[in-house]
């Protein structure tokens, strides 16, 4: 991608069209905006608020599990905490953070004036706060909020669920609409709005990974809508999709849910790959190793993601043929993922590496995400999965890929692009403190969970056998430390917005891409006239 050059340095925003305007003032700017940067900012702040909300719920969970026996909360409330923690983190924190990054960066990276459908873009965002208001308000209603796990398996979500389940269903419906519209916007922007000369194989990998992610979103969010609809009719309208008495099957719920759920997992990691593929070359001062293999690997992971859903269901009594099919397909995913990890490491090989905060998070991502990938490979093996299923080993696995994977990459991306967004350098010292606090505490938090799971501690239960007490205490301490560490990040961001050393247009020596040809902070409207890419 070093072939991207800017024709004239003045390709920024000095030719305003007359109806173009600067940023309006006040609250209405944010309510009515059609600007991709404003909407990106809204998504990112929303995501961070949800991250702290979901994090607070995790703190409740870890406080309860600090000691064996029921200590602080009722079991039903504990179940609500695990459920809503999952829903908030998946749909409120990780996905909007990626959409926020996409909004901010994709138009700048491909030399477009804005997203393709700017008004719909605003709609996609503003649905989210309303959707989460509904979801979170159900916690305070009679009978409580959703308590069936974020996977809402039937019959927990149908026969045994609280009255407020309908609110959960409809809030998921509108979250899904938001995601689908956001994804359509991303696809159309990438396909239709690239600057002249920005051919497919010149696209930054963040754009490529988001294109594929958006395709996955459009394909599976409607399936989630179908699933919650069937839960709704089973609970309130007397259907029996998931009830054997009427000819249905609770296992059918799991098939439909995971047909959505497994691509969803990749929706939450593919954009990370794009971010890491931008940061690692920048701080190694080398071109990315194996650009085209990265693109093909991303596409392969996306295709395979539709063929592996039942590895979440090895213990449901599927025929042996199905167990083998899903086992082999799942293990196959390790190949393209391995290609990616290899390429990142090869990019760093003999590079002139410096370890600013984005690079620290990126390197931690590569190591820790790989640990999560390996435990995933263990879980993919059907016979041993019978042992690991629904234990803390699974919890450890998916938190390694989601926290040290997705969240760490978002942190890395935030540090990397903050100078571009705010025009100021963030406080490097504080950033490094944030990194070291996070990376140590997150391993204290999640690594011992592997041992708890292997020793047989089941997940989603507020009490446990006394022999797990010591390790749980360590895990909880790690949890509190990780939670508090994230407040440092908040401090860094606020400090950076309010001032600091002025950032140049290209504050990182090795970074490449059109966004670095714009001044920092990036002007309100960029690339009204598309740049020429050679």
């Amino acid at each position, binding site marked *: 991608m070093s072939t991207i050059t800017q024709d004239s340095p003045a390709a920024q925003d000095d030719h305003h069209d007359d109806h173009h305007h600067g940023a309006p003032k006040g609250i209405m700017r944010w309510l009515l905006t059609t600007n991709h940067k404003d909407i990106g900012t809204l998504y990112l702040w929303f995501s961070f608020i949800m991250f702290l909300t979901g994090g607070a719920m995790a703190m409740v969970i870890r406080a309860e599990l600090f000691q064996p026996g029921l200590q602080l909360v009722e079991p039903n409330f504990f179940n609500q905490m695990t459920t809503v923690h999952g829903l908030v983190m998946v749909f409120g924190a990780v996905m909007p953070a990626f959409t926020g990054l996409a909004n901010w960066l994709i138009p700048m990276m491909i030399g477009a004036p804005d997203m393709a459908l700017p008004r719909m873009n605003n*709609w996609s965002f503003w649905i989210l706060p309303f959707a989460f208001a509904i979801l979170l308000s159900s916690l305070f209603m009679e009978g409580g909020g959703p308590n069936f796990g974020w996977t809402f398996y039937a019959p927990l979500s149908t026969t045994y669920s609280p009255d407020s389940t309908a609110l959960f269903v409809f809030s998921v419906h509108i979250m899904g609409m938001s995601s689908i519209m956001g994804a359509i916007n991303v696809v159309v922007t990438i396909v239709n709005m690239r600057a002249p000369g920005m051919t497919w194989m010149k696209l930054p990998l963040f754009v490529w990974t988001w294109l594929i992610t958006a395709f996955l979103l459009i394909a599976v969010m409607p399936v989630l809508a*179908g699933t919650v609809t069937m839960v709704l009719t089973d609970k309130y309208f007397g259907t029996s999709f998931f009830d054997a008495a009427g000819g249905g099957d609770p296992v059918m719920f799991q098939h439909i849910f995971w047909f959505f759920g497994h691509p969803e997992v990749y929706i939450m990691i593919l954009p990370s790959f794009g971010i890491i593929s931008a940061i690692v070359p920048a701080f190694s001062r080398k071109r990315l190793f194996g650009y085209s293999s990265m693109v093909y690997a991303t596409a392969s992971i996306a295709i395979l993601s539709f063929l592996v859903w039942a590895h979440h269901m090895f213990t449901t009594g599927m025929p042996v043929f199905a167990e083998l099919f899903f086992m082999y397909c799942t293990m196959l995913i390790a190949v393209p993922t391995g290609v990616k990890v290899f390429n990142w490491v090869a990019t760093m090989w003999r590079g002139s590496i410096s370890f600013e905060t984005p690079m620290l998070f990126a390197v931690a991502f590569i190591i820790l995400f790989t640990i999560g990938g390996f435990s995933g490979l263990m879980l993919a093996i059907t016979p041993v999965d019978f042992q690991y299923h629904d234990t803390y080993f699974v919890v450890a696995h998916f938190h390694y890929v989601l926290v040290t994977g997705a969240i760490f990459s978002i942190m890395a991306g935030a540090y990397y692009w903050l100078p571009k967004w705010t025009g100021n350098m963030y406080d490097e010292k504080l950033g490094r403190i944030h990194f070291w606090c996070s990376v140590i505490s997150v391993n204290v938090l999640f690594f011992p969970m592997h041992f708890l799971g292997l020793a047989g501690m089941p997940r989603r239960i507020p009490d446990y056998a006394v022999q797990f007490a010591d390790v749980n205490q360590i895990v909880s301490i790690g949890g509190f430390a990780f939670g508090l560490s994230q407040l440092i990040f908040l401090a860094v961001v606020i400090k950076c917005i309010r001032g600091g050393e002025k950032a140049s247009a290209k504050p990182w020596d090795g970074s490449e891409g059109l966004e670095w040809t714009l001044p920092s902070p990036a002007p309100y409207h960029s690339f009204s006239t598309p740049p020429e890419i050679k």
Partner: protein
Amino acid sequence: MTSKHEHYYVPAQSAWPIIGALGLFLIAFGAGSYVQQLKTDGGSGGFILLAGIAIIIFMIFGWFRTVIAESMSGLYSKQMDRSFRQGMSWFIFSEVMFFAAFFGALLYARMIAVPWLGGDSNNAMTNEVLWPGFEAVWPLVMTPDGTRTEAMGWTGLPLYNTIILLTSSVTLHFAHVSLEKEKRSAIAIWLGITILLGMGFLVLQAEEYIHAYQEMGLTLSSGVYGNTFFLLTGFHGMHVTLGTVFLMVLFLRVLKGHFTPEKHFAFQAGSWYWHFVDVVWLCLFIFVYVL
């Protein structure tokens, strides 16, 4: 990508999206409350839901009026047109996946869940111990817990409806051809016929539902056969309704002289949507009625 730069229209601030978000909020919250209040009767959920729907209709009118005005005043470039077309295609793809979830449920119930309850695969004891005497047949006219119903045949109303909908796709195509040849009155006639066929379909489907509920005992709650039957045909019917409204708006715009052979995205989108609804019906007819 354009070789020569055209101006891409980025609209200024707009109130319609936030109004739409508010409308969806009221719909979701209202529907969620209404469904809970079904058992207790009373409560304000239904009113909140209606208010939400009213706001959404208001938003659609306002938003579309803005877009049509922008389009008619020539603000949209070819590139913009492509954005709309691609956006519509991906929206239709998402709709396909929504129906796929229910078709998936139908096929799973029919090919796996029901046979297994009847003892198939390695489930002999499931049948023997849990549901003794249950016989796996499709359509499932008697559920494991003994709810009886009747199967809907494919001749009669469903067959008429298939013919109606297939014909409507053809007439809509003729309307499109007339548009490309710029024969104004022919567009209106063919489009009008398509709308009438769509309405005819809906009337017949209503009649079929009444027949199913009153004479056959086939209801939404009569086991997984009734579940899949009503959810699939019901969601399809909602799409036909929406498509008919879409075509009516196009009809009014044709009368007003909108659309040229080169620029008629809205017409194209309506036509794509209608053909999609038609294809879904064909799958429905095969998998729900005939097979």
